């Protein structure tokens, strides 16, 4: 009896491990496919052979497929940085969403909850309506808006964190409520600026609030990558801590984790990365909130699979949505914020409905 029970447990553990491996492989495959489709498909037709030629030419190798300089510019200077930004932003938003949901033990947590998005939006809107003075005047014109947004995002998180921290202890529940309050205040500020804006500013503002991957260059991508990659690389390392947090904060402490310090590190990583991502793309919803839930529904709440799978699935969803954004209304372009939900929403609903009999969120 006892032997067969332990055999069952072992078998279940083996199943879980195999399931995890399958899920990670699937997410990686999805990411790879969407990355290559996204890089290979667009308004300008560039064949796979030409893409190989263009890439090989960068390394000084010449291949037989010929291409024009316009095709080279479109691929190297317009499409490739855009695809890289899409992958990065999608991955970052999903990683931050997954870890913050774990940290807050709240299914509605996402990067927006700790104030990053609304702080960044308020700063961006202020920058658009008031123009840029002070430190911003020293920044190159095309970098002013992202720099303002990044600073605004971090300032909002700092405030939220400050309000929730007493005697070195950050209270998660307080932080959640402080985030809601800061979001409401930033929303009011945005409303005030929208009210005071003229027609041009309003257009610019709407464009930013709906998000876009357009117009990105390698020069703009580099700072985002430097700020966002640490989160993608390091957040998965906190999987065991986040698993323990599912049991409760004091249980995590008894298990030997340095709860306060780890909380601060996770929030800092998420804030910097999400702030950098939002500053470059504007507000792109849905991915940070829903991608981690999709993965949970498929693979359960364990963070060792959840974090890396969310990163890859987030990137894949962003890139797929962007393919539609770029090509659906040619020769114009749709704001990507509309499409992330359109592409991912129905799938999420299908998963939810299918699971209704099978249990709750975690």
């Amino acid at each position, binding site marked *: 009896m006892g032997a067969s029970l332990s055999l069952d447990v072992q078998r279940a553990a083996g199943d879980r491990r195999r399931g995890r491996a399958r899920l990670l492989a699937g997410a990686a495959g999805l990411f790879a496919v969407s990355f290559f489709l996204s890089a290979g498909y*667009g*308004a*300008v*037709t*560039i*064949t796979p*052979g030409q893409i190989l030629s263009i890439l090989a030419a960068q390394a000084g190798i010449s291949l037989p497929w010929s291409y*024009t*300089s*316009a095709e080279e*510019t*479109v691929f190297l*200077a*317009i*499409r490739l940085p855009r695809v890289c930004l899409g992958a990065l932003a999608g991955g970052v938003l999903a990683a931050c969403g997954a870890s913050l949901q774990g940290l807050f033990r709240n299914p509605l947590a996402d990067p927006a909850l700790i104030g990053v998005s609304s702080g960044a939006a308020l700063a961006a809107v202020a920058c658009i309506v008031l123009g840029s003075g002070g430190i911003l005047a020293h920044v190159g*014109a*095309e970098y002013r808006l992202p720099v303002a947004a990044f600073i605004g995002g971090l300032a909002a998180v700092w405030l939220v964190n400050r309000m929730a921290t007493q005697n070195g202890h950050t209270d998660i529940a307080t932080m959640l409520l402080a985030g809601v309050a800061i979001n409401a205040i930033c929303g009011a500020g945005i409303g005030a600026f*929208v*009210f*005071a804006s*003229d*027609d*041009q500013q*309003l*257009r*610019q503002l709407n*464009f930013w609030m709906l998000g*876009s991957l*357009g*117009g*990105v*260059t390698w020069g*703009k991508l580099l700072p985002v990558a430097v700020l966002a990659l640490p989160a993608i690389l390091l957040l998965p390392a906190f999987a065991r801590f986040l698993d323990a947090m599912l049991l409760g904060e004091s249980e995590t402490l008894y298990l030997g984790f340095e709860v306060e310090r780890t909380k601060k590190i996770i929030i800092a990583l998420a804030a910097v990365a999400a702030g950098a991502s939002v500053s470059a793309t504007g507000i792109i919803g849905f991915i940070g909130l829903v991608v981690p839930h999709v993965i949970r529904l498929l693979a359960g709440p364990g963070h060792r699979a959840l974090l890396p799978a969310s990163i890859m699935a987030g990137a894949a969803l962003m890139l797929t949505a962007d393919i539609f954004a*770029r090509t659906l*209304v*040619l*020769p*114009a*372009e749709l704001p990507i914020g509309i499409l992330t939900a359109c592409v991912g929403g129905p799938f999420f609903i299908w998963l939810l409905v299918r699971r209704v009999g099978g249990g709750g969120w975690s």
Partner: protein
Amino acid sequence: MRTARSIFAAVALAAAAGLSTPASAAERIVSIGGAITEILYTLGAGDRIVAVDTTSLYPEAAPKLPQVGYLRSLAAEPIIALKPTLIIADGDAGPPAVIKQIREAGVRLEVTPADPSVANVYEKIRIVSALVGEEAKGNELAEAIRRDLRSLAKAVAAIPDRPRVLFLLSVGRGSPLAGGNETHADTIIALAGGVNAAAGFTGYKPIPAEGVVAARPDVILVVDRTAAALGGEKVILARAEIAATPAGRAKRIVTMDGLLLLGFGPRTAVAARELALRLHPGLRLD
């Protein structure tokens, strides 16, 4: 396997066919900005346009062309994919990063100035006509506009009445915007022999209800789209803040086509004359 190979071959062939269009065949112009498009059509170059932006609503043929989106939120790759030989863009076109990307792809992109003056109408005509090699027609067009505006100015100078005109623009929710200094509305009101009642600020700004009353307009000026958005002329005149103005009491409101009134293209003189006639019912124009 064989199917896969034949699909690949078909794709490659299609791509090759797309690329082999001879560059010398014909000019392919992407026109970005309502005034630019109108100028091109007036110069007889309309058949060279392959795509326009969403503000290009006149003449009727223009909005039937493929549209590259709103002029302030363009995307680089779809425009490059149209293989234009020339892009002519209004000074408001953007975002700047996209303009830069298009130029870096080796596509010729010329931008006209954006200031809302009459001088800029002539400048736009000069630039566009030179770009499409129709300088003679361009000079003729500019001369005709100059002549019409001169005779309008003379007629307007003969009458002493200078009504205060408040231009209102509705953009979605919130209070309507008023056209202050340095706007197309301000310029056209002056051409038509009116005084801008909202001259205290520059650009289009939201104007509070009390600001409308304080501006004491004799006439309310709106474009057709604003009139529709606000519920029609009667509803606008019945708004409390407008009913309290001289314009509201005399029920004086002028509705005009948006692109005609504010486009500042070849029809600038037509617009100014129409507005003048409606501001000064007794005005006689030859």
